[in-house]
């Protein structure tokens, strides 16, 4: 009846996950009860859960990422404490449990923190920057988000019901095969990534189509803001790489569920094939994450330097070069597995070539700042912090791309330090920069600068104290994923790293406080202009937050830095628009499709993990029924009448005009 599921699945003997699960459950229940009692449920349902507005979906992605960052961060804290105390002793975590923690940490951080964060920012900003009303497929967009949430949900369920994989974030066979991992851990891993992977693919198709086919009038390719370019590159990578992940995980699942022999040791299966497939996805994946961050830094650096981006065309070229080359270096992830010196040399050189376009970008940012009027607001701090940190991470990466060096450093703490260096210093700093930069756009008020700066400095310093020691430990020969160890030379570095983790956590707390303080002071921090940073691209043209339809008139773009140009013209001609006729606007209707799809996907995923076949069929039928009902709908759009558009737009124009005349009076 319930497949493999019985009472033994709940770890009554392990207090940590049980207590953590209970706390989370109580928290969720408390929030739910509060929502229902306060009568917020209809609002949530109509305005958020069923919303197909790209801005709302973007915000929900970022919310999901933030919550999961706390979960992944707790795992990180547990690991750092374990390695600080587990010198010549067991430490406080049983090995089984430690293995699950690092697997869950890596999986969560990549798939449910970094991915949703950058996809959320792209969703929120790109249509605005392109001057359009929504993404190409609004309802699908909502489906994509909710499927990602399903994946996150499944991973978290594994905390209390059953177990998570003990195989690391990439689940290498043969360890992940049934014979070595008979539990449900790998199944949790694989199904949650399969489901959220579909969501990611949908988001990728959506954003590629949006950038290529929906740009507003006059928005030629070479006038798109840099963030749109990196979004395009990143989503092209998603569309090309995620199907590889889907296929690879499908093969692993076939091995596990039906006794196939793709990657087994018996009957001719080939483990190296898994390595090639997973890294053919995995290496582009890191660029999927970091390219949007590069875009954010480009926007931020140029805005806060008060200058157009230096070398815009070389930036575009560098972005697309990275997009292509990132598909040709995957083998550097297994130099040590016997491909031979020639193959290794070729892939080593190809890997180093990526450093060239990346270097171009760094120089362009520096030259953008050079001679500019720089304002060190919080987003700019994150950007400068990134440049310093990423150079260190990039250099150690080039070092790892030297095959002989990699033979020494492979799978050591040096590697762990390297990829955190690029992923925290690149992706996470970028996400935070984008968060601070676009927050006023999304919510209509700015974030508190003092707490923001505190958050930056604690995170920045904490990062160095945590991860620089790992480089040293790695060079002293410490391998990764150690539950405990007996080498005294490593101990001090592990203790320093744990202290660093504490400093880093203060940074995270500052960020939470920043949010709370800003919400409390939101009237004082209100952004009346829609353009709090004196921005250069179109997302600063509408009010903050923008109306559902974003733009009352489709903007007509005449050059790079579209909004900067408009502002320059407006100074001479006073504000335009008034002579234009307002028109009715058609917008896509809200739809529960995404949420219902995710509901059935969750049921189906859970049932598949536990081999509850009747429930699988039920979930599948439900999903199909949703599809048919969705296909059957008659009206998927509603009309906002011209008067309403005019009313909304006039309020915005009034606010701006009063500000302009105030500025004129001074």
């Amino acid at each position, binding site marked *: 009846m319930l497949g493999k599921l019985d009472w033994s699945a709940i770890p009554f003997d392990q207090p940590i996950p049980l207590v953590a699960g209970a706390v989370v459950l109580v928290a969720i229940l408390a929030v739910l009860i509060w929502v229902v009692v306060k009568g917020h449920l209809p609002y949530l349902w109509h305005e958020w859960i069923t919303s197909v507005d790209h801005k709302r979906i973007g915000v929900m992605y970022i919310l999901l990422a933030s919550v999961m960052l706390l979960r992944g961060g707790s795992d990180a804290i547990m690991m750092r404490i374990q390695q600080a105390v587990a010198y010549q002793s067991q430490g406080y975590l049983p090995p089984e449990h430690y293995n699950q923690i690092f697997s869950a940490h890596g999986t969560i951080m990549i798939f449910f923190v970094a991915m949703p964060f950058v996809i959320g920012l792209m969703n929120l900003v790109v249509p605005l920057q392109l001057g*359009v009303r929504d993404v*190409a*497929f609004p309802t699908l967009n909502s489906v994509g988000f909710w499927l990602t949430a399903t994946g996150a949900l499944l991973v978290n369920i594994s905390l209390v019901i059953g177990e998570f994989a003990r195989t690391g974030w990439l689940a290498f066979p043969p360890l992940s095969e049934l014979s070595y991992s008979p539990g449900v851990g790998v199944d949790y891993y694989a199904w949650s990534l399969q489901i959220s992977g579909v969501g990611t*693919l949908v988001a*990728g*198709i*959506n954003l*590629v*189509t949006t950038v*290529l*086919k*929906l*740009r*507003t*009038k*006059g*928005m*030629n*390719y*070479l006038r798109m803001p840099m963030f749109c370019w990196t979004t395009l590159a990143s989503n092209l990578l998603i*569309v*090309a790489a*995620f*199907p*590889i992940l*889907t*296929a*690879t995980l499908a*093969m692993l699942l*076939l091995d596990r569920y*039906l*006794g*196939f*022999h*793709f990657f*087994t040791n*018996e*009957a*001719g*299966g*080939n483990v190296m*094939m898994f390595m090639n*497939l997973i890294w053919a996805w995995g290496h582009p994946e890191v660029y999927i994450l970091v390219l949007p961050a590069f875009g954010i830094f480009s926007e931020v650096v140029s805005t806060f330097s008060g200058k157009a981006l230096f070398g815009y065309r070389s930036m575009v070229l560098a972005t697309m070069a990275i997009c292509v080359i990132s598909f040709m270096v995957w083998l550097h992830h297994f130099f040590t597995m016997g491909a031979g010196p020639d193959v290794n040399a070729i892939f080593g050189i190809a890997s180093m070539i990526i450093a060239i376009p990346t270097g171009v970008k760094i120089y362009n940012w520096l030259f953008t700042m050079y001679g500019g009027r720089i304002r060190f607001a919080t987003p700019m701090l994150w950007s400068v912090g990134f440049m310093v940190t990423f150079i260190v991470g990039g250099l150690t990466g080039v070092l790892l791309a030297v095959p002989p060096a990699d033979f020494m450093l492979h799978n050591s703490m040096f590697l762990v330090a390297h990829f955190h260096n690029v992923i925290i210093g690149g992706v996470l700093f970028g996400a935070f920069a984008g968060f601070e930069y676009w927050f006023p756009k999304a919510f209509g008020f700015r974030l508190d600068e003092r707490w923001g700066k505190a958050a930056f400095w604690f995170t920045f310093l904490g990062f160095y104290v945590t991860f620089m020691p790992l480089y040293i430990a790695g060079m002293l020969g410490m391998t990764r994923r150690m539950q405990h160890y007996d080498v005294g030379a490593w101990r001090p570095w592990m203790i320093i790293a744990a202290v660093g983790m504490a400093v880093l956590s203060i940074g995270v707390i500052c960020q939470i406080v920043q949010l709370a303080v800003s919400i409390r002071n939101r009237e004082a921090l209100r952004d009346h202009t829609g353009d709090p940073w004196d921005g250069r691209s179109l997302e600063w043209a509408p009010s903050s937050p923008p109306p559902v339809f974003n733009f009352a008139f*489709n903007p007509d*773009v*005449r*050059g*790079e830095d579209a909004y900067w*140009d408009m502002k320059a013209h407006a100074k001479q001609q006073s504000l335009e628009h008034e002579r234009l006729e307002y028109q009715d606007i058609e917008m896509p209707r809200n739809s529960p499709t995404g949420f219902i799809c995710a509901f059935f996907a969750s049921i189906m995923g859970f049932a598949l993990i536990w081999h509850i076949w009747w429930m699988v069929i039920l979930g599948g039928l439900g999903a*199909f029924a949703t599809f*048919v009902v969705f*296909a*059957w709908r*008659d009206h*998927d759009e509603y009309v906002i009448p011209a008067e309403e558009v005019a009313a909304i737009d006039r309020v915005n124009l009034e606010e701006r005009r009063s500000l302009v005349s105030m500025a004129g009076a001074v």
Partner: protein
Amino acid sequence: MAMIATAGHAHADPHHIGLVIEHPGPAPKRIVTAYGFWIFLLSDIVMFSCFFAAYAVLSGQTAGGPRGSEIFEPRNVAIETVCLLLSSFTCGMASIAADVRNRFWFYLGMAVTCVLGLIFLAIEFREFADLVARGYGPSRSAFLTAFFSLVGCHGLHVSAGVLWLLTMMAQVFAKGFRADILRRMTCFALFWHALDIIWVAVFSVVYLLGSGA
């Protein structure tokens, strides 16, 4: 630069130095939908490529089991291929009928497509069932694993296509040739033709090369 571009926009003089062709604005919905679906198809083809790659790597790994030439039946495969190629033709006829809003030819084209698709699936199913009955199931060897997965993956796509086809017919029956339904019909036709192309690859790589070896 920007000024030149604007000037070039105003009077489209191809001899104007530094002319930039102005982007005209968002594409119509029909194009956007088809474009997005194309991208999906490309990503689906990437997924198939992985199974093709796996087949290429594993096709020699028979682990003492049968090789391709011992189990493939060229006659069946030929019938399958003919069915599928024909169905692509009839699907094309149905698309044209939809474009000119002719219900009769639309239903006929779709119905024939459906029948041909089902015949294809039936033959494939029989082939699989037969192999399993002889003990040559997918867990017998890595070669058979790769074979069943690649061909089966295509078969699953065809099954999904048949389901989609039926919903398309029902939609036209209930709602007529509305703009959104025509857009979906375009996507369905793209999907069905893409399956044909993939089958040609399967046919060549698996059956033709395999029968020779």
